[in-house]
Structures are given as structure tokens and as C-alpha cells.
């Protein structure tokens, strides 16, 4: 029941997102064809582009044919990248860069966040030091500056990592992985700070619960109390925060992919916006939003496993 409800909620949100992405760019003042070609464009060229984009048809008809396309996996054709190239192929080429980057980055910040947060919760002195400096540092360093400095130091200087770009996964999987390490570190710094803070406060709260006192009083070693009793409970709120952080993460890839010249979804979205390629803007925004929604659904499905109370409620 729980999963079914969450699943339908996800479908509903996805439907709303298709509407939002479609109508934002078509209901806005001005003619999309003129937006693309510029206001001084030749009227015949404008007319041609309008019929190419289907702009001469009623709005709802445009939406329904776009939606049908989305369901078939057809997001239209790019109007700049070698005209007529399918948007879906451009996106499919970009995802093998962005998805591993996002996963690696979430992995790094979760691992660091849980370790640092646990240390901070157990040890007060170290705690306030870690929290204060990590959060001030991560909130103040611009990600792109950190990225540029890391490239100079670890890639160009010490030669441990490639400075930019990424080989194809099929050609050189190890090299591709290595190319993602620095971008993932750059991307994970702000999230590490937030997760550290969350783990710390969640764990501190859990450690005050009665069942923890029970566990301690029956003589369990402190390690067992923290790791197998308290941490799992604390992870429930951590998974919520991780879901929220995902949105920031996808947004962060736009900057980080630019710094490291990675041909991912964020860079494609940026190029689409700068080139005013509306079908590509719609396609990348929709896929980005869909990714966030699907991952949030997967995280929601983890709750009942992490926290049996959710299974009992409703």
C-alpha cells in the first residue's frame, strides 16, 4: 500500500513536471521562434521555424503531441546541435557522465557526513570544531574556484588525475572513473557539511532516547550502542535530507561539469540555454526533474525498511 501510494504520487508529480516544463517556455511572452532566431530575423525563416516547431497549432495539441513524444522517448529535435539531431540522443550521451558523477558525489558526502557527524555527536569538543569550520569553509568556497585549484594542484601539479574531460566508459572504464574523482569531491563539499550537521543532530537526539539507556544499562559496549542501535535510527532523517540535497546536487553539476569540461547533462542544459535551443532546454529540464523525482521515490521506498513505524502508520 505504502509503495503503491508513493508510486502514484510520483506519477502525478511527473505529470505536473511535464506541464510545467512545457508551458513555462511556451506561455511566456514573445514568440519562441523569434526568441531563437532573434527579432530581426527574416519573416519567412520565422514562419518555417514556427511550423517546424509546431507553433502554428493549438497549444493543447502541441502539449499532447509533446507528451506523446515523451512517452515514446522522443523529446523532439535540437535546433542548434547539427540541426534536427534528436534531443533524446544528446541526453542519453550525457547521462553516463552525470549519473555516475552524482552517485559518486553523494557517496563521498554520505560517507564523510556519517563519519564526521558521528564523531561530532560523540565528542563535543571535536564536534563544534568540525561543524563550525567545515560549514563555514564549504559555504564560503565557490565550487568552481575549488575545482580550478584542485585541477592545478592534484591534476596538473601532481598528475594524479586527468585535468579535464572524460574518456568513454566502454573504451577506458578506469580512466573514466578517475576523471570523475575530482569533480565529485568538488561537488560533495557543500553537501558534506549539511549531512555532517544532520547526522550529528539526529544522532544526538537518538542518543537521548530510553532504548539507548536500556542498551547501555544492559552492558552493551558503546560501539554497539552507537553503530547498531542509534545510527540506523538517525539515518531516517538523513535520508530525507539526502533527497533534498539531490536537487542542489543536480544544480551543482551545471557548474562542476563546466569547470572540468565534462559532457554531462548540466553542461548540455547550459549550452541549450545559451544557444536558446528550446526543445533541448525542455528536454534537459524535464529529464533533470524526472531524475530527481524518481530518486526521491526510491528514497521514500527505503523509509519502511529503515523505520518500521512508517509501515504501520496508514
Amino acid at each position, binding site marked *: 500500500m505504502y509503495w503503491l501510494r508513493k508510486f502514484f504520487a510520483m506519477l502525478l508529480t511527473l505529470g505536473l513536471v511535464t506541464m510545467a516544463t512545457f508551458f513555462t517556455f511556451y506561455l511566456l511572452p514573445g514568440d519562441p521562434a523569434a526568441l531563437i532566431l532573434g527579432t530581426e530575423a527574416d519573416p519567412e525563416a520565422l514562419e518555417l521555424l514556427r511550423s517546424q516547431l509546431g507553433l502554428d497549432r493549438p497549444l493543447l495539441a502541441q502539449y499532447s503531441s509533446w507528451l506523446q513524444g515523451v512517452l515514446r522517448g522522443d523529446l523532439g529535435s535540437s535546433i542548434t546541435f547539427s540541426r534536427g539531431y534528436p534531443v533524446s540522443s544528446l541526453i542519453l550521451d550525457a547521462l553516463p557522465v552525470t549519473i555516475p558523477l552524482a552517485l559518486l558525489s553523494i557517496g563521498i558526502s554520505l560517507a564523510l557526513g556519517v563519519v564526521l557527524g558521528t564523531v561530532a555527536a560523540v565528542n563535543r569538543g571535536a564536534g563544534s570544531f568540525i561543524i563550525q569550520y567545515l560549514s563555514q569553509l564549504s*559555504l564560503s568556497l*565557490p565550487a*568552481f574556484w575549488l575545482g580550478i585549484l584542485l585541477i592545478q594542484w592534484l591534476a596538473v601539479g601532481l598528475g594524479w588525475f586527468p585535468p579535464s574531460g572524460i574518456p568513454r566508459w566502454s573504451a577506458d572504464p578506469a580512466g573514466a572513473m578517475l576523471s570523475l574523482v575530482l569533480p565529485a569531491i568538488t561537488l560533495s563539499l557543500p553537501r558534506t557539511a549539511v549531512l555532517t550537521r544532520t547526522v550529528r543532530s539526529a544522532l544526538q537526539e537518538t542518543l537521548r532516547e530510553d532504548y539507548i539507556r536500556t542498551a547501555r544499562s544492559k552492558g552493551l559496549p558503546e560501539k554497539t550502542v552507537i553503530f547498531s542501535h542509534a545510527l540506523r535510527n538517525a539515518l531516517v532523517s538523513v535520508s530525507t535530507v539526502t533527497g533534498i540535497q539531490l536537487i542542489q546536487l543536480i*544544480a551543482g553539476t551545471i557548474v562542476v561539469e563546466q569547470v572540468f569540461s565534462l559532457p554531462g547533462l548540466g553542461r548540455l542544459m*547550459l549550452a541549450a*540555454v545559451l544557444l536558446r535551443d528550446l526543445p533541448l532546454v525542455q528536454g534537459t529540464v524535464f529529464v533533470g526533474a524526472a531524475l530527481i523525482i524518481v530518486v526521491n521515490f526510491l528514497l521514500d521506498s527505503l523509509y519502511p525498511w529503515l523505520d518500521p513505524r512508517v509501515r504501520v502508520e496508514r
Partner: protein
Amino acid sequence: MQKYNLWSGSILVGIMVLITVVGFVYTPELPNKMDIGNQLQPPSPEHLLGTDNYGRDILSRIMVGGRPALEAGIVGVVIGLSLGTWLGAVAGYYRGWVEEVVMRLADGLYALPSILLALVAVTLLGPGQLSILAAVAIANVPIFARLTRSAFISIREAEFVAAAKAMGLRDSRIILRHILPNCSSLLLVQASVSFANAVLAEASLSYLGLGTQPPDASWGRMLKEAQAFAGQAPWTVIFPGLAIALTVLGLNRLGDGLRDLWDPKLSPHE
């Protein structure tokens, strides 16, 4: 030690604002003046922070490059704070369906990172400072709306509000003169955090080429142009980056310091 954040924050912010203000009347060189033959010179008495790939004086460019960032902070925070506080106050004071509508909208907007808002703004308005100001302002509205609403919900139950109502004061007067002043410290702390985020957002967006356009200087734009020369001429990336980091650090410390000063309960580090 208690006031360390407040002091160091104020000093950092003061220095960066002063540099930018002086930049309006005096810079060592014209910030956009190219000097072919003097490209990528290291820091020296003539060029205290060196020159970039067009021979332009980096110190002069840093002095004027803070304008778009500080402008984004001021405009973004003023618009976001006024609009957001107003919406939040109405929602928190009247509750009911008004609150539902305002808060659902705010939640939806809150989920969008300012960089995505900026991408939408650029799609519509084209790249430039205007798009950035719009994005930063809109991104701040839900933040202040949520904050003000939650403060209003608890304050409206206070006895002095009941007393004001019993005296027959108009709602607008109760909201503006009786409840709002009680939220001012909360709003000011958030304003300094929002200011810091706006500076960072402007720098990131200009780095992406969405904001200040060449040949004009902005700290983020300078980094974009310097990135290719980072190895040859590290000063071209170090100084603009430091300018951003120090400004944001100062503003964040100021926010932390104000929070510690006014409400130790809210402090994240007990």
C-alpha cells in the same frame, strides 16, 4: 571569543565593501584597459596583483568586479525580504486558505535552486545582470516567506497581540508595529546569509557566462577567463577567487555572529 564571528565577519565585509566603494572613484588603472606586451605579469609594484591575459590590471578589475555581486546581494535581499516577509506575514497572521496557497507556492519555489531559476531567467531575458537579479530576488522570496510565517504563527498567540486586538487596532497596525518588530533579528540573520548566497550565486552564474558580459569585470567572470591560464599565471585565479571567498566568509560569519548575539538557542554550535 563569543563575539569572534561578529568581529571578524564585520571586518571582512567592511574591507570588501570599502574596496568596491573606492572602485567607483579610483582604480589604479582603467579596469578594461588592455596592455598587449604586459600580459600575465606577476604581481609587481606597478601591478600589485599582476595582470591578466589581456594585460589588464587585476587589482583594478577586482575593485570594480565586486559591483555585480554586491548589487545582486542588495537587490536580491531587499526584494526577497520585502515580498517574502509580506507574504509570510499575511499567511502566518490570517492562517486558513491564504496560508495554504502562499505556502504551497513557496514550497514549490523553494525546491528550485537559484541556478535553475537563473537558467529560466536567461532563457527569457538573455544573459546579463538583469537575469541574475531576477533569479536571486525570486529565490529569496520563499525563504523569507517561510521564516516570517513560522515566526508569526507563534507570536500571534502572544498576550500582547490579544491585547492589541482587544483595543481594536487594525490588522495592518498589529502586523507592522506589534508583531513584525519581534521578528526583526530573525530576518536580519537570514538577510546576511541570503546576501552571502547571492554573492556566491552571482559569481557562479557569471562564471558560467550567464551574467556580466565581456569586457566588463565581475569576480566570477574573471575566473572564467583566467581558468585557461591558471597554471601559467596562478595570480589570475587566486585573487578573484579570494575576493569571492572572503566576502562570502565574512557575510556568513556576520550571520553566525548576529545569531549568537541575539538568540543563543538558534546557534548551530552550542
